[in-house]
C-alpha cells in the first residue's frame, strides 16, 4: 500500500483564514490578495519565523512585513508607539497566532508537532525553496500600501 506524504489539508486556505482573522479581529485592518510579490528594491523587512516539529512533520511559518507596517501593527496591538524590542515581539506574536492555526491543521491531519517560539530577524526579503519531499505555500497580501508575505514550508514523513 502506498502511503501518501502529501498533506490532506490546504495550508494556503489555513494561511488565508488565519491572516484575515488576525487583520479583522486584532488589527482592525483590511487585507487583500496581492497580484504580485513586492518588488521594491532594497526594501528591508522583519522576518518572523516559527517552527513546528513532530515525529512526522517539520514545518516553518515565515511572516515578512516592512518596518513601517510592523511599527503600525505594534501601535494597534499595544496601544502606544513601540520601541525596537516591542516591535519585534509584536511581529513575532502575529506569526505565532498564524502558526498556532497551522499546527492545529497539521495535528488534525495526523501530523502532530510542537510549536517553537518566534524568531525575529531583519533584512532583505527571503524566499523559502521547497525540495522534492516538501510542500511550500507562498502567499502575498496587501494592506493599504504595505505588502504582507506569508510562507509555510512543510516536510512530512509517512
Amino acid at each position, binding site marked *: 500500500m502506498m502511503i501518501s506524504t502529501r498533506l490532506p489539508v490546504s495550508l494556503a486556505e489555513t494561511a488565508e483564514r488565519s491572516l484575515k*482573522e*488576525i487583520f479583522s*479581529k*486584532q488589527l482592525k485592518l483590511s487585507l487583500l490578495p496581492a497580484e504580485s510579490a513586492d518588488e521594491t528594491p532594497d526594501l528591508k523587512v522583519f522576518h518572523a519565523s516559527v517552527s513546528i516539529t513532530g515525529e512526522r512533520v517539520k514545518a516553518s511559518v515565515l511572516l515578512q512585513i516592512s518596518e513601517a507596517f510592523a511599527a503600525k501593527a*505594534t*501601535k494597534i*496591538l*499595544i*496601544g*502606544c508607539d513601540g520601541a525596537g*524590542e*516591542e516591535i519585534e*515581539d*509584536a511581529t*513575532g*506574536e502575529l506569526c*505565532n*497566532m498564524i*502558526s*498556532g*492555526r497551522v*499546527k*492545529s491543521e497539521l*495535528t*488534525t491531519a495526523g501530523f*502532530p508537532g510542537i*510549536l517553537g*517560539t518566534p524568531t525575529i530577524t531583519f533584512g532583505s526579503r527571503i524566499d523559502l525553496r521547497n525540495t522534492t519531499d516538501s510542500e511550500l505555500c507562498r502567499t502575498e497580501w496587501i494592506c493599504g500600501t504595505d505588502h504582507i508575505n506569508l510562507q509555510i514550508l512543510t516536510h512530512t514523513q509517512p
Partner: protein
Amino acid sequence: MSLPKILSVDDSRTMRMMVKRAFRNFQCELFEAADGAEGLAAALANKPDLIVLDYNMPVMDGVTMLRNMRENPDLKRTPVIMLSAEDSNEIISTVARLGVRDYIIKPFEDENLLSKVTRIINLERKPESDQPAAVL
C-alpha cells in the same frame, strides 16, 4: 475593599500588554509573568483571583504550570482562563481536565476576554475621570 487580582502569564510582552490594555477601564490589580515558572511564583506570592494563561511558553509551559497549581493547596482552586494561539481539541480537552474555566483562541477581542472574566470575578469600571484617554 480589596481589588480583584489578575495574573497574566505569557512569554509575549505584546500579549501581556494587550491583556493589560483590555482591563484598563476596570478596577483591578494586574500582575504579569513571562513563563510558567515565573507565573507559579507570582501566583504563590500574590494569590490572584484569576489567571490568564498562555499555553506555549519557554521554561515552563502553561499545562505544566496548571498541573503544579492543581497540586498546590493554595492554588488548586484558582480560576484559570487559557489564552492560546493553539486550538486543537487535544489541548482543549487536556486543559479542561485540569479545571480550566474557559479557553480563548488568539487573536482575541477585548470584549470576549472581558465577558469571560466577568463570569468568574466581579469587575467594576473605573470612574470616568480615572480612565486613560483613548488612543487614536
